[in-house]
């Protein structure tokens, strides 16, 4: 349900009572009898969609109050009630951007309702964009990534694993658009769709690649960028994907002059998180993975490497995992992580080591199990109690 909370601030209690009586059927009404009280109310019962303040009040006046609200609750839409004498101040406040609308007293309920509806629509618009990027877009891409991870684990389970770590690192570095980081990580491997499975498997098991295999592999960041070309708002993630395999000193692919902080920050995060994941899978310990990365420091942005170290210190303090053997698929806890690859009886990789069990993967696992022979027990990592 959309936020319909409206707060009125006025030093005249009669006006507040009238407003509440007339409007409570259509909106969620809150009131405050001074600017100071209004600020307290915002802190305790916010966020509000709309604030309507009187202009002339003892203590903070309407303009001062709404200026403060602009700082502490920037998304709340601000409306002022004003007498004829203060109209010029109100007009200026609108034109300088601190007010959405003003109403001159006396004002009819019809006019007030019109303005409130306009203000609520404005609030919805402001939040729609964020919701669409943070929830709808990220949620859809994440769901599809999970499915790709289940169907083609050797290629795509990796991007799921790195997406939440990339987001955490970005947040440590103080980046704003975390959805961009998450999307870039989730979509980082889509270019691999042109790379044959055999080559990808070699890459993960660290085998030597022939020249032609290398050139196929080196192309995947560029293909990822091409696949996303023309999608508005994804220019940032596309550029990050293009530079995800490039080293901090400028070596690596793509072979151009960019290096250091000229490389997009999201690309520098992906570069480090990628190797961290690979080393963690092979070394089995975060400390050793980071130690190995330090020996090849030219590849990584030092600030990203530091954030990675901090993150690791935080999540694993006093937190150990043990391997548990499970004989009945119904007992596999959602959120546990596979300790070993699960292979079909013909040796096809069904679920890779490191896969986090979700409702959907559990369902697929139980359907597959009921038809085919798979070696049990299943070994998973769970947190030690």
């Amino acid at each position, binding site marked *: 349900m959309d936020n319909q909370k409206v707060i009125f601030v006025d030093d005249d209690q009669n006006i507040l009572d009238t407003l509440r009586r007339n409007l409570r059927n259509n909106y969620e009404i809150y009131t405050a009898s001074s600017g100071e009280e209004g600020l307290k109310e915002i802190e305790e019962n916010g966020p509000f969609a709309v604030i309507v303040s009187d202009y002339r009040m003892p203590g903070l006046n309407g303009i001062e109050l709404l200026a403060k609200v602009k700082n502490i609750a920037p998304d709340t839409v601000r409306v002022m009630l004003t007498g004829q004498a203060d109209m010029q101040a109100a007009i200026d406040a609108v034109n300088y951007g601190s007010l959405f609308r003003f109403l001159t007293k006396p004002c009819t309920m019809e006019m007030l309702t019109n303005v409130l509806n306009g203000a609520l629509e404005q609030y919805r618009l402001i939040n729609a964009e964020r919701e669409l990027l943070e929830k*709808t877009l990220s949620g859809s891409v994440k*769901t599809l990534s999970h499915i*790709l991870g289940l169907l083609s684990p050797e290629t795509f389970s990796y991007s799921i694993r790195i997406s939440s770590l990339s987001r955490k690192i970005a947040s440590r570095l103080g980046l704003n658009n975390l959805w961009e980081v998450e999307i870039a990580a989730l979509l980082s491997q*889509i270019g691999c769709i042109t790379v044959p499975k055999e*080559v990808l498997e070699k890459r993960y098991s660290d085998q030597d690649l022939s020249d032609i295999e290398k050139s196929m592999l080196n192309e995947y960041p560029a*293909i990822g960028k091409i696949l996303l070309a023309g999608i508005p*708002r*994804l220019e940032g993630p596309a550029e990050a994907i293009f530079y995800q395999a490039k080293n901090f000193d400028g070596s690596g692919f793509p072979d151009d002059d960019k290096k250091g902080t000229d490389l997009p920050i999201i690309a520098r995060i992906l570069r480090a998180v990628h190797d961290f994941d690979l080393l963690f899978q092979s070394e089995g310990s975060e400390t050793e993975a980071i130690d190995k990365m330090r020996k090849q420091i030219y590849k990584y942005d030092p600030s990203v490497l530091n954030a990675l170290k901090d993150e690791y210190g935080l999540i694993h303090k006093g937190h150990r995992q043990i391997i548990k053997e499970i004989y009945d698929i119904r007992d596999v806890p959602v959120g546990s992580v596979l300790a070993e690859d699960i292979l079909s009886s013909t040796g096809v990789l069904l679920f890779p080591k490191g896969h986090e069990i979700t409702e959907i993967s559990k369902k*697929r696992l139980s*359907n597959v199990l009921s038809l085919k022979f798979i070696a049990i027990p299943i070994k998973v990592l769970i947190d030690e109690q």
Partner: protein
Amino acid sequence: MNRKILLVDDDSNILAGYQRSLRKNFEISTASSGMDGLLAIKKEGPFAVIVSDYRMPVMDGIKFLAKTRKTAPDTVRIMLTGQADLQAAIDAVNEGSLFRFLLKPCPPEDLTKTLNAGVEQYRLVTAEKELLEKTLRGSIKVMSDILSIVNPVAFSHSSRVSRLGTKIAQRLNLDNLWEVEIAVMLSQIGCVTVPSGILEKKYHGQALDPKEEEMYLEHPGAGRDLIKNIPRLERVAEGIAYQEKHYDGGGIPGDQNQGPEIPVLGRILKAILDYDLLLMGGNTEIQALNLMKEHNRRYDPEILKALEEEYYQDGAAYQIREVRIDELLTGMIIAEDILSETGVVLVSHGQEIGETLKKRLLNYKHFNGIMEPIKVLKAIGRDSAKLN
């Protein structure tokens, strides 16, 4: 970002003055009357912002801006007004038909500030549409294309019919076309819970045993569960859950809903997915439509009619060609499954060739053999004979 501004004033000196001071920051067009303004919108629109004077002969600012609401609903409207008309302007803002007004005389700095706010407001108003129709749709398209390459048996179905779904929705005059397209693209995601052996049997038209059938029919519900918590995709999720529901109330899910109570997205999916399966099973379009008419209790009659009309209008004709992998061109449609030398389906028939798919096949061929030549359909123009 759209920074196009239309200035309307009957005083050409004022227009010239504003144009000089604003043209560095904005793309300015001008008109000297309301009528000219409407014409400019038609020819040069869409504008981010329209600024109109209030007092003009014949059509005043309020009347002119009210008219632009119909032809350019997303455009942000600002009025220039004198002290005498202040109350009219304030009322227009509060009724929601004006974004802002400015008092004359208005210094260029104030106008610039207000225009920047107007451009930002235009961005806000159009952002939602752009995000849903382009960003979200585009991202899901890329990923579902990849799904259909990774697992053609399960997912080529949805990518083949996505264009058809949109065309049917247009014929039915539905509003949110992005929802239809996304529902089609995501319709098969629940198949990820179905073991591949079952999907292959289904794909090759073999009968499933009861246990397998039961697993298969759980996929619409599983698909809904995967996306039901994503905001804005609630209706898409419902549509996916009803893709195997018959119009007369039969089918899956086994609830009481029937006829128009079934979500329209579900009714569309049922019809176009069945149509596609019939085509994949070797029927011609006419045969497929006739078979569907024989089972017309399963389909919404409006949708069946739209499907038929679509067939008669889409007069594109194709020719079958045999080509090698390196001769594939973007836009060709695969006429017969592309198989590896060991008989694995790499690309299923009906799939359209894109650059990525071609590259993948070339790389694949380098390691494993691919059965060549490949049979493809190549468009040879509209309105000539249809080949199958």
